């Protein structure tokens, strides 16, 4: 692939200082898997942290040695000459705590028991993630990020960074996000969780010891999620009412192309993703609500922020609709923050933030050029 950061290697950082979660739970020791691209400049001012969404991880750009197909999930955004230009920025991707791609999570071994944490792994919040990411920044010697960015749940982390560590973020790039989930959003997450929780192979979260994986539940959860990340139009364009065999079968096998697609996506996901991680991620989404401690007043919540912001939404995103981004923008306006907001016309629904899109990338590039203009390379 052109303009790729090329071959990358995942790294691992160990933290021996206990981390106290919002829930009160304590993790005495943990590891975070991360990747970096580009070079940290002399005064350590060109670092960008990329936060991932529900199913993402630290492998953001490039590919692994000997596996050219293992392309990072935001490779179209990050690389030499791309909007997040690795010739100028030092970019960090990190697998969140509770993840299943190398960072300590439910499938990791609990040193106390010698078995996977499973159900014993604490429920993680966005605040907890930001806390753990800040410790990674400390280890890497980064006092202040040029930018913290992310889409969806990743955008929530970017926002939280600006609230938890106002002095450590110069720019927050909040893409396809919301200041909190709506009841409808939580409802979707709960159906997904129920699919997993009621799978007989789930075993209360301790399925590892039983030699099984709650694949059926995870698959259903992913199928449901996937529907909500697309738009009605995108699905109609891609699949319409097409039948795989061209005629009705009068049964319950896969007939419509959309069924085939969703089941394929569900199976693929269930083959590599951890069910407990999925539960944790959806819970973190549900809990995120910086205005909660201010009686729902988002203006007050953002009064702590000191960074500048770029907020981006997509017209066909009904899971995190443009109106939700406007709530963020308005709260920033009321706090006199520097903020720009772009509403991108895109057909791909919530997933648009991951897509190659000329105007969207032009907006990102323009903003990040500005960010890069503020430090000497």
């Amino acid at each position, binding site marked *: 692939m052109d303009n790729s950061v090329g071959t990358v290697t995942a790294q691992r950082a160990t933290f021996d200082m206990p981390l106290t979660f919002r829930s009160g739970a304590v993790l005495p020791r943990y590891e975070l898997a991360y990747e970096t691209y580009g070079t940290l400049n002399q005064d350590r001012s060109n670092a960008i942290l990329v936060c991932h969404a529900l199913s993402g991880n630290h492998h953001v750009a490039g590919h692994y040695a000997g596996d050219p197909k293992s392309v990072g999930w935001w490779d179209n955004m990050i690389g030499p000459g791309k909007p997040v230009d690795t010739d100028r920025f030092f970019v960090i991707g990190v697998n969140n705590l509770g993840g299943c791609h190398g960072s300590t999570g439910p499938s990791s071994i609990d040193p106390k028991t010698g078995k996977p944490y499973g159900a014993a792994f604490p429920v993680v919040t966005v605040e907890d993630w930001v806390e753990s990411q800040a410790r990674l920044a400390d280890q890497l010697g980064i006092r202040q990020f040029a930018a913290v960015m992310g889409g969806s749940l990743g955008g929530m982390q970017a926002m939280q960074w600006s609230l938890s560590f106002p002095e450590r973020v110069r720019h927050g790039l909040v893409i396809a996000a919301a200041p909190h989930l709506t009841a409808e959003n939580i409802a979707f997450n709960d159906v997904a969780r129920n699919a997993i929780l009621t799978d007989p192979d789930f075993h209360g979260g301790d399925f590892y010891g039983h030699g099984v994986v709650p694949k059926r539940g995870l698959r259903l959860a992913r199928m449901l999620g996937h529907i909500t990340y697309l738009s009605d139009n995108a699905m109609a364009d891609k699949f319409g009412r097409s039948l795989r065999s061209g005629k009705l079968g009068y049964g319950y096998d896969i007939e419509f192309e959309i069924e085939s697609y969703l089941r394929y996506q569900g199976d693929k996901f269930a083959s590599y993703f951890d069910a407990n991680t999925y539960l944790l991620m959806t819970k973190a989404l549900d809990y995120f609500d910086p205005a909660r401690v201010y009686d729902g007043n988002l203006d007050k919540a953002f009064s702590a922020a000191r960074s500048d912001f*770029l907020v981006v939404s997509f017209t066909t995103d009904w899971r995190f609709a443009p109106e939700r981004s406007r709530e963020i923008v*308005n709260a920033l*306006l009321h706090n006199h923050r520097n*903020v*720009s*907001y772009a509403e991108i016309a895109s057909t791909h629904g919530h997933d648009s933030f991951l897509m190659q899109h000329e*105007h969207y990338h032009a*907006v990102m590039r323009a903003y990040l050029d500005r960010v890069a203009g503020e430090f000497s390379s």
Partner: protein
Amino acid sequence: MSAHDHAELAAARPDFAAIAAWIPQGASVLDLGCGDGSLLRYLKDTRSVRGYGVEISDPNIVACIRNGVNVIQGDLESGLSGFESNAFDFVLLSQTLQATRHTEPLVQEMLRVGREGIVSFPNFGYWKNRMNVLRGNMPVSEELPYQWYDTPNVHLCTLHDFEGFCRDLDVTVLDRRVMTGSSEVKLLPNLLGSTAVYRFQRGI
């Protein structure tokens, strides 16, 4: 932007200099239909304003970001509901009034959100425009560069029209500057001025 760029910009857009002259250092400004952000950038550089622009066009959003100004993508015609009352010292509408569909509610919104409003617009009463109409054609000029069939301008007016409009809306005109090119016009402004800039507030 350098001082030279500013001089060039002020020459190209005389209404910019007129607007800037009314805006004190450090004021807060909302620029509606801010285009590529040139005016905001000019005011930021010359008046240190804290400013935001509202703009609908995609290429202009990118241009504003490149210009280093805050821009919020949105449609003026659907109101300024995201902005709190009295949030800004000045709300600007530069060369956009004539292209707005809901002109009356927009001017009301300007004065809800801002302490003062400033608008600039091409004077349809300018003698060259009148000559065109007398000759039987819609005017096409530097200030009105469109053909009748592709113009975004749906609410063209003269100085007299705008002042009548303000009276009807109980809006007090505080100041006015009429220009042709970059020179100020004092004599028979509604006939001899091609561009008008008004500064106004809610009726007192």
